[in-house]
């Protein structure tokens, strides 16, 4: 009798599988990307070894991993909120840039303000600028169902050009040797760091936001609305939820959080605005959010992993590997994460019915 492999729906979702699939996906993703590294004449194991060493082999490496995890956590949380509602905000990159822009405006306009005034102002403007960048594509999405995936993505390019205009033009530091960067921020515009490391209070902010997201999504009526709207927009409509308002609100908050990531990065790390401040945080955020299955606390954990991946990626650049290597690894991992998801809902069985 002829048999055939077929998918059988799982009665209940298995917790073990839900946790194992993402881990397995990461490993297989690295193996898959390893093929390309191997084909190009390099030893993938050696490359991965170098990356692990760069990220975890020294106290500096570990602290840099945490430093990179901060913007990833914030942008990851930002996009996950939108994804919960099936809003494909892939514009976190642009919202990050706009947040950095807004914060920089405050830092350059009020350099004499004390930190207790200036930092909250920068934080607020970072949120507002990023939030507006998230809200702009949300309006046509809410009212005319204009595909937000395309609009949010295209707005990334606009935001980066916008920031470039300022750092190459009006805001360029006259003492900056003609590099595309603004003058260094004043003392009051710098987020404090822990000890001598570059780990800054943005970490506490990110953890706080993760906790708030967890609480709101899990225990509040609005959080429930967001989850229902994502899973079944029709049910949300019949239950009398204001879908349009929720789209606008979610995209505003999502963009705003990504904007805060931009604020913390210019305030604590670069301490000025400059060309190319993000190595693609907003895109990595998408992978993090998906790998964490949009769970706020899992995003915190996964962000550290990807922070390590970025730091490892930087450290292999000194051995002549292009910066794009990290994007390749990330893309490969995401393939297996999305591909592996089916195993959480179905199991592959050998059906002997002789029919499909």
């Amino acid at each position, binding site marked *: 009798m002829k048999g055939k492999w077929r998918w059988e729906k799982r009665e209940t979702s298995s917790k073990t599988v839900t946790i194992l699939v993402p881990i397995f996906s990461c490993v297989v993703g690295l193996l898959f990307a390893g093929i*390309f590294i191997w084909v190009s004449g390099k030893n993938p194991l050696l490359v991965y070894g170098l990356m692990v060493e760069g990220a975890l082999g020294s106290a500096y490496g570990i602290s840099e991993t945490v430093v990179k995890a901060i913007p990833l956590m914030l942008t990851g949380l930002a996009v996950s909120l939108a994804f919960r509602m099936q809003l494909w905000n892939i514009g976190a990159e642009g919202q990050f840039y706009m947040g950095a822009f807004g914060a920089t405006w405050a830092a350059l306009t009020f350099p004499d303000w004390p930190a207790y005034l200036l930092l909250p102002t920068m934080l607020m403007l970072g949120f507002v600028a990023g939030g507006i960048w998230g809200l702009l594509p949300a309006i046509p999405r809410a009212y005319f169902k204009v*595909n937000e995936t395309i*609009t949010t*993505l295209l707005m990334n390019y606009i935001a980066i050009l916008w920031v470039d205009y300022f750092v190459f033009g009006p805001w360029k530091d006259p003492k900056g040797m003609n590099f595309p960067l603004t003058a260094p921020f004043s003392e009051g515009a710098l987020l404090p760091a822990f000890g001598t490391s570059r780990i800054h209070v943005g970490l506490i902010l990110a953890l706080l936001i993760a906790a708030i997201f967890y609480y709101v999504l899990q225990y509040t009526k609005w959080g429930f609305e967001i989850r229902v709207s994502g899973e079944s927009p029709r049910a949300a409509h019949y239950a009398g939820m204001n879908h349009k308002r929720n789209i606008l609100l979610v995209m505003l908050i999502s963009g705003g959080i990504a904007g805060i990531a931009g604020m913390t990065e210019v305030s604590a790390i670069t301490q000025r605005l400059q060309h190319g401040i993000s190595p693609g945080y907003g895109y990595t955020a998408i992978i993090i959010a998906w790998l964490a299955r949009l769970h706020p606390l899992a995003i915190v954990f996964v962000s550290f992993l990807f922070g390590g991946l970025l730091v490892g990626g930087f450290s292999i650049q000194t051995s002549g590997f292009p910066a794009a*290597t*990290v994007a390749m690894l990330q893309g490969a991992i995401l393939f297996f994460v999305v591909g592996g*998801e089916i195993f959480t809902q179905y199991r592959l069985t050998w059906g002997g019915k002789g029919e499909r």
Partner: protein
Amino acid sequence: MEVSPWIAILATGIVAGIPILLAALGEILAERAGVINLGVEGMMLIGAVVGFMVSLQSNSPWVGLIAAVLAGAMMALIHAFLTITLRANQVVSGLALTIFGTGLSGYLGKSFIGVPLTATFKPVPVPGLSQIPAIGPIFFNHDLLVYIAYGLVALLWFFLFRTRSGLELRAVGENPAAADAAGLNVFLIRYACVIAGGMFAGMAGAYLSLAYAPSWLENMTAGRGWIAVALVIFGVWNPTKAFLGSFFFGTIDVLGFHMQTLGIVVSSFFLKMLPYVFTIAVLIVATRETKTRRVAIPEALGVPYVREER
């Protein structure tokens, strides 16, 4: 001969529109069969880098083009497997394809940045037609790939709307369950369309690196893959309308450059924003139009087909 600046702008607009057009034609195929592929940008980049590398090696742009088309197909195969067989989320799978393609192309192409290429596609005026005033220089004084693109527009239109296979393909995108019941192999047709879409995207990328630039630069597509996805909506999933749209987008794309030569002083950063701003604006208008006229959106777009649950 004195060429009016407007004719020069329109002629470069056609050329600038070709990569967007080719990518959009491929996306039309995939979406007509019900599969959204947001990996266009990534597939184009892979096509561009592979086309460049192979042209350099083989010293023939045609061999490079074929390699780019095959590379695009391989990339699309990943998306097809994930979304059709494994029923993965089409949006996220497409994004993965774009991220992976961006990374892999940067990885492969690192040592080719700035390398000069002699095996490129060069302009070949069409005898006779290129002599027609205005029309000639605008449409018929380009490289062969431009004419091939014209041909593909007509071919794809004919295929989609005038052949039985085209009808079957559209049926799969509109109502896969009914198409399945009528004896069509939904999975096979979707696979074929997504892979063919990847071939078009690969060709679009090769056009950039072998004819338009011609060189390799990291991220040289600069969002054209996304503009192509928008163009599909603007062109209501119709190849001929996509052609008109690509002419439009291409012209906007080169307008910034020409504005500077015409002596209009605007920061180049703002001029570079034009195609993106314009695409967003057009997308909003086009979406409203499709809503009010209730046309064309493939009914089952983005929905995985699951047979057992019927």
